[in-house]
């Protein structure tokens, strides 16, 4: 049975890879299986975790659960054309909660925290930093400052302001390059993982 299952896995693996050549029936078959199985898999997991897990196992003793269920039922009102508009209530609830939650949390973690971390002595505590560290510290301060200038919306990027914004873009591009370079190797290892499955688990060529 396991042998058969490995053949299935290999068939699917190669079907997805075949997309790199061009779209074809093999890929379409894999895609169709993927969509059907994964959509159902997701729902089953949600059902056991959030409905069975919370209402049955957790005995539903938290009144909050029933508010959630009530909102969920309102959502299903969409299925009744005449009162479908009621489904906007839970939607409005979600949008309001998301906006409120993100507003203050992002402000704290992305604005306050980053400003706090940027305030540091350029020369290190008590002149202790080496030349490279000092340059690094200056680069951080200048880069953060000029990067923010780039994001200004209400002022045209002209003159000294425009020049600073250009420096900002320079830093942003280094940041993107660094992220890019950092990720390349890990993506290669994913491919190696799949090749390892094909040549090892399936074909048995790698022990």
């Amino acid at each position, binding site marked *: 049975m396991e042998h058969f299952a490995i053949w299935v896995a290999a068939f699917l693996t190669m079907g997805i890879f075949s997309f790199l050549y061009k779209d074809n029936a093999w890929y379409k078959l894999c*895609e169709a299986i993927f*969509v059907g199985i994964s959509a159902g898999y997701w729902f089953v997991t949600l059902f056991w975790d959030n409905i069975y897990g919370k209402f049955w196992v957790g005995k539903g003793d938290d009144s909050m659960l029933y508010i959630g269920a009530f909102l969920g039922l309102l959502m299903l009102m969409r299925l009744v054309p005449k009162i479908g508009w009621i489904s906007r209530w839970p939607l409005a609830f979600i949008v309001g909660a998301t906006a409120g939650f993100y507003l203050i949390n992002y*402000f704290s973690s992305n604005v*306050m925290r980053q400003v*706090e971390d940027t305030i540091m002595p350029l020369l290190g505590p008590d002149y202790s930093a080496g030349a490279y560290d000092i340059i690094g510290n200056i680069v951080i301060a200048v880069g953060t*400052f000029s990067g*923010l200038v780039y*994001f200004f919306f*209400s002022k045209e990027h002209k003159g000294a302001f425009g020049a600073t914004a250009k420096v900002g873009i320079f830093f942003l591009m280094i940041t993107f390059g660094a992220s*890019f370079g950092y990720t390349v190797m890990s993506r290669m290892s994913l491919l190696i993982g799949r090749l390892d499955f094909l040549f090892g688990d399936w074909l048995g060529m790698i022990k």
Partner: protein
Amino acid sequence: MFNCRRKSNGLCLSIFIVAAICSLSVSVKAQSETIDSTVVTDTNLVVAAPPTSVIASEYKYDDAEALELSWVPSIDDQLVDGLVLAYRVYRATNGGELEMIEELTPGNNNFTDHDLSGDSSYSYVVAAVTVSGEYSSNATAAISPEREWLNYEKKWLFLIALFITSAIMYFIRTARKKKLFVRKIAGLEAIDDAVGRATEMGRSILFIPGIQDMDDVQTLAGLTILGRIAGTIAEYDTKLFMPVSRSLVMTAARETIKASFQTAGRPDKYHDDIVTYVTDEQFGYVAHVDGIMVREKPATVFLLGAFFAESLILAETGNSIGAIQIAGTARPAQLPFFIAACDFTLIGEELFAASAYLSDEPRALGSLKGQDVGKALAMFVILIGVLATTIASAWHVEAMQTVVDTLSSVFSTK
């Protein structure tokens, strides 16, 4: 002696555990009653002084659910040749029996006890553990956790957030009277052309609002942008399709498109099949979108929302079919891939500004000016803070140190 053979290991272990628990409880009980009066009768005993000055106090700014415990460690708790192996914290609820609630490593001198109730009172004993047993402190006075209604620790967060939200609201109000200047954002300037191109070519437009649900603010940003451009798409009479990976996003996207088509005077062009649910699973969704991209060959692809590893798969496939691609996300790790594979990329903040920019509505544009005030404040604080802390630390200028301390306390989030 016991002969713990393999088969009776379980039994042996159980007996040992029961014996250990019994001796432990006896020793705790005895020691909690006769503190500081441990009599040394056996020279092999490792005796340690108990922790002293154990104080249970109110945990600040909580909902009557935590207490803070502090103590002076045992004088025998030393890094080198220390006798103390651990500290055990015991708690008595409403004058009941002591029960162990936590074991801490040596060197600790405080502990926060969570998940308590404001209706009960608690008393604590801290014991220093040595190889020979436990040496307990006096029990603390009984105390109940109290509820605080305001978290004063976050006062600066509140005040600065209030300042910036007020600035945004101020500009939203003033923008009604006077149109504010907003610089050009290349990716957004290109939207009309991108939609027009699809119309000219007689091909469709694909809109992907990321792979997260409605509880991610980036998805909301994607949908607000959709709201602005769907009207243009309706006016151009171009085909729009939008496979999504979340059921709620499907519902919200349908409402958004329906409203935009209505506003554009083309409600007849709307049908539910514009937005289809595929699967919640990240790569299952990507497999489908990739497939549909090469089959439908949309002329324009919008990728606006929260993206993860799939960003590059989608963007490269879009690129391979020659579509004009306008992307945007607030996930810094995915931005480089969009920049490499798309024609225009909205970087972070630009994604959130996009719908306001596109709306050309004064109030929305005003909010952009308001967030610039936030940036100006951040830049000002960084500038002053860096200069002050550099001068203070290199030349020990006290006035500068005061500035640094003030800024640190104001912006501290820890």
